[in-house]
C-alpha cells in the first residue's frame, strides 16, 4: 500500500488489516481507515459519477460534506465513503454509473449535455404530442436517482434506539472552540454534553498538526465529566431539542443552553474543470495525509484565498509532495508559510487564482493567473502547471445551519466574504470559534471558554470570581479579534477556461446555468435554487451555497447581503430513515382477555387503538348462538367514566341532550353526546350508581375524547363534580341470549329474575366470587347483561362464564357478529352509521333530545334550529330485494346521482334476508319507501323500514 511513513496523529492501526469488497473486488486497508482512504490507498481516484452528466468525481473534502464519494454499503445507499469506517467484509458498490465507474455509458450526456440539458430544460419540451408525454416521462425518470433502494423486505433488519438526554449545556462541535466551551461550562458545574460528527473530537486540530492539543482538550473535558459523543452529528435544532445521530442511536438532547461551535466549511472555487478528480480542498488533502498517511498527490498546484491553503502546501511539501506552484488571491500575503514556500523555490502568484483545470478522467494540469475582481485573467499572467493534484482553499463558510434553525439570521460580512452570525444571539444560544468568523487558534479557544462560561452563568452557576474572569476573557477576545488577517474574497467564478465551471457538484449546476436562470427571470436566490436545483442535492449547500450566492449577486447586480441565504433545514447530515424511526413498536391496547381470544383462535384486528377479536371463525354461528342460546363478547374497550359529586346529575344534564339527573339510582339510560353544533360525537349508557355517582360508558374509540370533553367543560363550569376514567380498570363482557339469565344466575346470589333485575337496571353483585357491576342492557337485541369487573379478574370471570355456560351452549362472539346482531335492531354505531355531520334528528333519534329541559345544555341552540329546519336526510333501515349485500359505502341514488349512502349491510341468517342501514333524502325516510342503491356499477332495489328488523317490540330484550 502506498502510505506515508507513520504520521503523528494518524488514525490507522498498521498492525491490523481489514479487507472489504468494492464492486466485487477485494480492497485492503487498515483498522481506522475509512472506506475512501482504503480505496484511495489502493489507487482509486474516481469515486462516483455525477448526478446529471455522469462525470467522474474524486475525493474533495474527505469530511463527509460533499457528494463526491457516495457509495452503497451492504445495500445501504448514500454512504459517505470518506467518513464511513472500513469494516471487515463489508460490501461496497459504486452508485449512478452503468456499467461501471470507469466506463459510464451515460457520460455521453456530458458531451452532449452541456448543450442539451440546461437547467429546467424539461419544462420547455416533451409537451407535444400530449399522448407521448408518458413515454418521455419514462425516459426522464430512467435518468433519475443516485443510489438504489434495496429489494423489498418484510420488516426492518437494523435496530436503532432513541436515547433521551437532558443537559444543562449542549455543545455542538468538538473543535478547540467547542471543547473549550464544554470544559469551561463543566468546570463551573454544568451538566454538559458535547457532540462532534468527526471520528473523534478535535475538529481541525486533528489535521493541522495540533492533534496533541485536540486530544489534551478532549481528555480534560472527559475527565471533568463532559459527556463526549463522536462520531455524532447534531441533525437539527427544534426549539431547544437537538436530535443527535450516533451510529444506531438517536440521542434527543434537550438542553437549557446551546453552544454552537460547528466551525466552518472550506469552500471550493468556481473555475472550468473544477470538478476533476485530483481537485481537492486543502482540508481534504490534509485529512488524507494526517489521518490516513496518504499522499494526496505527487505534484500539486495550490489555489488559495486563505492562509490555510498555504499551510496545507507547506504540510504536503514536508511529506514529499512536490508543490509546483501556488496562486494566492490575497495581494499581500505574508507569514511563515509563505516564507517557507518561497524558500523552497515554489513560485507564488500573488493576487492569482486558478482559472482552469484540464484532464478528462483525472487532473492533468491547471492554469493559474492573476485575475481582476471578475475573475478575468490579466493577460500574460497565466501560468500553466502540469500536476495531478490541485489544492483549493476558497475561503470558509461558517457551518451556521443549526444557528439559523435557532432563529439566528446571518449577515453578510464584506471583509471576510462570508455570512456570519450577529454578535447578539437569542437567549440560551451561544456561538464560538470559526462559526462566528473568528480566526486564530488563541482567539478560538478563548471564544469557547467565554461561551462556556456564559452558558454556565445563565444557569445560575459560577461566582463573582468566575464572572470577573469572564469579563477579562471577553475583553481579551475583543483584542484578538482584529489581529488575524482576512482571507481574500474570490470572484464568483474564474473566466478564461474552457469547459464546465461547476457551482454545485451535487446537481451538476454550472455558473453559466445560474446566469441563464437570472436572464430568464429567476432573479432571487430562492427562485434560482428551485429552477437550477443548486443547493438541493446531498451537500445541501455546504459546497455551493456561498458560490451560488456570489454568482447571483453578480448576475443580478444586487449586493450579497440582499441576495441572502436560503433557509437552513434539518437534517444537517443525511440520516438513514431507520435511525429517525427508532424502534418499530406500535402502542396497542389489549383487553385482559386478549390471550383467551388468541387461544380460542379469534381473528384479531385493530379496532381503533385496541386489538380485538373480529370473530372466532364463524360469525354467523356465533350470532345464532346469541339468538338461540347464549353468547359472550369481550367489551372491555368500552370507555368507562365515573362521574361523582353533588353536581354530577346537573353536570350530565348540561352535557347530554336528554335528562340524566332524574335517573333513579340503579337505573340506566342511553345517552348521545353532541357538540354545540348539534352534531353527534359519541354515545353510550349512563347508569346511576348512587345519589352523587354515575357510571358512564362511551364508545371504545371515544373514551379519551369524551373524558377530555367532560373535563374541558368542567374546567370552564367548575361544578362540584369529579370525572375519573376507569376504562383500563375494568374488564367488561356482554353475556347475551335467551339463556344468559340462567348462566348468570348460576354464578351469583343476586336475584336475576326480570322483576328484580329488569331491563335497564344496574346492580352490583358478586359473580363467581368477584364483585361486578351488572348492567342489563341489550345492544345485540337479546336478553343480556353487561358485566363489568376489575380487570384483574377479567380472565376469572370469562372462564367462569364459559364454564357455567357450557351446558347452555355458550359461545364467545366477536365484533363481526355483534355488528350483525345490533343491525337487526337498527342500533346505531356512532362513527359508522353516523359521521361528523350527523345530528340526532336525522339519525332517527329525536326522542333523545329534550328541548323542554329547563337548563341549558351543549348543542341546545343548534338542535333547536335543526328541529325547526326539519329533516334534510334520514338514517333508516332497509331490506334489499335481490338478496345481494350492497357494500358498506354504496350510494343511494336519486335520479342517477348520489343522494345518500349505505352505512351498514349484512345478510342475516336469522332473518334470512339482506338488511342494512342507509342515509336517504328526507322524503324517502319513511316506512315502505323504495330506494335504489348503486354498488360497484350494479343497481339494487331496497325498501325502507324505520322499525327494527328483529323483535321490533323489544320483547326478547325485556324478557
Amino acid at each position, binding site marked *: 500500500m502506498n502510505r506515508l511513513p507513520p504520521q503523528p496523529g494518524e488514525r490507522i492501526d498498521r498492525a491490523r488489516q481489514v479487507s472489504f469488497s468494492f464492486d466485487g473486488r477485494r480492497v485492503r486497508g487498515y483498522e481506522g481507515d475509512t472506506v475512501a482512504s482504503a480505496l484511495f490507498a489502493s489507487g482509486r481516484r474516481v469515486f462516483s459519477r455525477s448526478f446529471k452528466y455522469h462525470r467522474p468525481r474524486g475525493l474533495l473534502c474527505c469530511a463527509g460534506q460533499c457528494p463526491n464519494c457516495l457509495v452503497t454499503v451492504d445495500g445501504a445507499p448514500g454512504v459517505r465513503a470518506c467518513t464511513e469506517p472500513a469494516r471487515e467484509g463489508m460490501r461496497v458498490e459504486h452508485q449512478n454509473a452503468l456499467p461501471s465507474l470507469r466506463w459510464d455509458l451515460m457520460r455521453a450526456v456530458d458531451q452532449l449535455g452541456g448543450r442539451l440539458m440546461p437547467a429546467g430544460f424539461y419544462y420547455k419540451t416533451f409537451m407535444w404530442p400530449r399522448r407521448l408525454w408518458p413515454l418521455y416521462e419514462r425516459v426522464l425518470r430512467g435518468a433519475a436517482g443516485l443510489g438504489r433502494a434495496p429489494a423489498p423486505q418484510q420488516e426492518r433488519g437494523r435496530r436503532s434506539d432513541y436515547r433521551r438526554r437532558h443537559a444543562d449545556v449542549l455543545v455542538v462541535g468538538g473543535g478547540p472552540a467547542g471543547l473549550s466551551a464544554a470544559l469551561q461550562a463543566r468546570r463551573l458545574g454544568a451538566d454538559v454534553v458535547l457532540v462532534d460528527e468527526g471520528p473523534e473530537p478535535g475538529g481541525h486540530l486533528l489535521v493541522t498538526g495540533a492533534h496533541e492539543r485536540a486530544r489534551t482538550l478532549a481528555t480534560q473535558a472527559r475527565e471533568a465529566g463532559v459527556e463526549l459523543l463522536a462520531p455524532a452529528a447534531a441533525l437539527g435544532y427544534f426549539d431547544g431539542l437537538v436530535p443527535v445521530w450516533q451510529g444506531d442511536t438517536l440521542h434527543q438532547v434537550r438542553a437549557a443552553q446551546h453552544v454552537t461551535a460547528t466551525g466552518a466549511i472550506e469552500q471550493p472555487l468556481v473555475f472550468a474543470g473544477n470538478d476533476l478528480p485530483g481537485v481537492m480542498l486543502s482540508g481534504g488533502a490534509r485529512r488524507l495525509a494526517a489521518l490516513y498517511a496518504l499522499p494526496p498527490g505527487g505534484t500539486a498546484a495550490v489555489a488559495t484565498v486563505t492562509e490555510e491553503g498555504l499551510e496545507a502546501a507547506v504540510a504536503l511539501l514536508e511529506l514529499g509532495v512536490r508543490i509546483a506552484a501556488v496562486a494566492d488571491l490575497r495581494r499581500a500575503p505574508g507569514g511563515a508559510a509563505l516564507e517557507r514556500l518561497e524558500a523552497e523555490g515554489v513560485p507564488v502568484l500573488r493576487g492569482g487564482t486558478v482559472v482552469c483545470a484540464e484532464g478528462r478522467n483525472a487532473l492533468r494540469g491547471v492554469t493559474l493567473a492573476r485575475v481582476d475582481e471578475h475573475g478575468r485573467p490579466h493577460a500574460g499572467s497565466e501560468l500553466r502547471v502540469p500536476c495531478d493534484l490541485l489544492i483549493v482553499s476558497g475561503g470558509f463558510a461558517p457551518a451556521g445551519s443549526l444557528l439559523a434553525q435557532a432563529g439566528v439570521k446571518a449577515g453578510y460580512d464584506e471583509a471576510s466574504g462570508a455570512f456570519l452570525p450577529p454578535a447578539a444571539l437569542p437567549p440560551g444560544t451561544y456561538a464560538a470559534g470559526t462559526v462566528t468568523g473568528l480566526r486564530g487558534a488563541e482567539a478560538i479557544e478563548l471564544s469557547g471558554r467565554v461561551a462556556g462560561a456564559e452558558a454556565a452563568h445563565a444557569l445560575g452557576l459560577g461566582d463573582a470570581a468566575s464572572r470577573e474572569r469572564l469579563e477579562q476573557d471577553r475583553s481579551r477576545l475583543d483584542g484578538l479579534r482584529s489581529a488575524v488577517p482576512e482571507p481574500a474574497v474570490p470572484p464568483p467564478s474564474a473566466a478564461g477556461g474552457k469547459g464546465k465551471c461547476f457551482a454545485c457538484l451535487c446537481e451538476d449546476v454550472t455558473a453559466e446555468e445560474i446566469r441563464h436562470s437570472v436572464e430568464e427571470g429567476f432573479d432571487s436566490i430562492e427562485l434560482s435554487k428551485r429552477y437550477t436545483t443548486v443547493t438541493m442535492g446531498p451537500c445541501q449547500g455546504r459546497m455551493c451555497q456561498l458560490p451560488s450566492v456570489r454568482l447571483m449577486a453578480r448576475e443580478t447586480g444586487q449586493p450579497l447581503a440582499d441576495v441572502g441565504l436560503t433557509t437552513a433545514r434539518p437534517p444537517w447530515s443525511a440520516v438513514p430513515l431507520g435511525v429517525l424511526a427508532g424502534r418499530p413498536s406500535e*402502542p*396497542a391496547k*389489549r383487553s385482559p382477555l386478549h390471550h383467551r381470544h388468541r387461544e380460542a383462535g379469534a381473528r384479531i384486528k385493530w379496532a381503533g387503538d385496541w386489538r380485538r377479536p373480529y370473530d372466532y371463525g364463524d360469525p354467523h354461528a356465533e350470532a345464532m348462538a346469541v339468538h338461540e342460546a347464549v353468547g359472550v363478547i369481550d367489551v372491555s374497550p368500552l370507555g368507562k367514566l365515573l362521574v361523582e359529586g353533588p353536581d354530577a346529575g346537573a353536570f350530565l344534564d348540561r352535557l347530554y341532550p336528554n335528562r340524566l339527573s332524574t335517573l333513579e339510582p340503579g337505573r340506566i339510560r342511553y345517552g348521545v353526546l353532541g357538540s354545540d353544533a348539534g352534531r353527534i360525537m359519541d354515545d353510550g349508557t349512563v347508569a346511576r350508581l348512587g345519589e352523587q355517582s354515575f357510571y358512564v360508558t362511551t364508545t371504545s374509540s371515544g373514551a379519551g375524547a369524551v373524558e377530555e370533553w367532560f373535563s374541558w367543560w368542567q374546567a370552564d363550569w367548575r361544578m362540584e363534580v369529579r370525572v375519573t376514567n376507569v376504562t383500563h380498570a375494568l374488564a367488561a363482557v356482554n353475556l347475551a341470549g335467551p339463556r344468559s339469565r340462567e348462566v348468570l344466575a348460576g354464578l351469583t346470589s343476586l336475584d336475576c329474575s326480570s322483576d328484580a333485575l329488569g331491563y335497564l337496571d344496574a346492580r352490583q353483585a358478586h359473580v363467581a366470587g368477584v364483585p361486578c357491576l351488572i348492567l342489563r342492557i341489550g345492544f345485540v337485541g337479546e336478553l343480556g347483561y353487561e358485566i363489568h369487573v376489575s380487570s*384483574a379478574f377479567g380472565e376469572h370471570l370469562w372462564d367462569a362464564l364459559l364454564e357455567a355456560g357450557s351446558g347452555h351452549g355458550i359461545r364467545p362472539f366477536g365484533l363481526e357478529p355483534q355488528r350483525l346482531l345490533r343491525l337487526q335492531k337498527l342500533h346505531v354505531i356512532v362513527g359508522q352509521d353516523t359521521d361528523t355531520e350527523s345530528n340526532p334528528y336525522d339519525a332517527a333519534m329525536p326522542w333523545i333530545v329534550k328541548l323542554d329541559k329547563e337548563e341549558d345544555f351543549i348543542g341546545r341552540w343548534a338542535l333547536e334550529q335543526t328541529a325547526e329546519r326539519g329533516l334534510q336526510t334520514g338514517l333508516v333501515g332497509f331490506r334489499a330485494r335481490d338478496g345481494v349485500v350492497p357494500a358498506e359505502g354504496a350510494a343511494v341514488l336519486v335520479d342517477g346521482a348520489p343522494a345518500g349512502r349505505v352505512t351498514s349491510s349484512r345478510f342475516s341468517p336469522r332473518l334470512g334476508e339482506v338488511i342494512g342501514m342507509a342515509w336517504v333524502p328526507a322524503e324517502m325516510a319513511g316506512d315502505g319507501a323504495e330506494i335504489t342503491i348503486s354498488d360497484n356499477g350494479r343497481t339494487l332495489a331496497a325498501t325502507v323500514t324505520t322499525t327494527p328488523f328483529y323483535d321490533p317490540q323489544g320483547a326478547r330484550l325485556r324478557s
Partner: protein
Amino acid sequence: MSLDFLSPDRALPAGAHEPVARSPIEPCLRRAGARFELRGGWSVATGFGDPEAEARAARSSVAVSDRSALGKLEATEPMEPGTAVHAEGAWWCPLTRERTLVLCPTDATAGVRERLAGVVDLTSGLAAVGVEGPLARDLLARLTALDLRPGSAPVGAFRPGSVARVPAMLLHEAEDRFLVLFGSAHAQYVWEVACDAAEPLGGTPVGAAAHA
C-alpha cells in the same frame, strides 16, 4: 351502590370459584417462562428460572419487573405536585393539587382505602413496572422524554408524562429504582417495549423475588 367492583381485594371465594387476581402483564410473563405464586390473592411472577442472573441484572445492569399487584388508590388528598412522600408504608403521589395516588402493598390496600376520602380504586386500572439497577436511567432514557437526572428527579420525584408513547407516571422509589405506572390495557405493549429496550443494555425481566 358502592364502587367495590373496582377493588380486587373485595373478591369473596365462593364455592368452586377461587378468584385469582392477575396482572395485565401475565401473558407476557408466561411466554417468557415465569413461575408464579399466589400472594395476597394475586398471581405474582417470582422468577424466570435463573435467580442468579436476575439478581445480577438488578445489581449490574437493569432489571425489569411486574409490580402490578401493588395497591393503587386515587383519593382526595391535597399535596404539592412533583414530589411523592413515603409514609405509613405507602407512597403518596400527587396527581394534581387535590388528588393523590396512593401506592401501597397489596394486602394493605383495604386498610388504606378505608381511611381516605373520595377514593377510586385504580389497582387494576394501572399496571406497574419496576425498573431497577445501575442502568435503570439508561433504559428509561430510551422510552421517555422525562428528565430523570438525579438533580432533576431525586428519590421521591413523581412525574406524570409519556413513556413509550403512552400516558404514564414515573416514581423514583430509591436510588436506581423507578416505578412506571400506566393504563393496564397498555401493559403488554409497554412490557415488551421495556424488555426490548433492556436487552442491549444487558438487562432482563426478573421476578418479584429478585427485588423483594
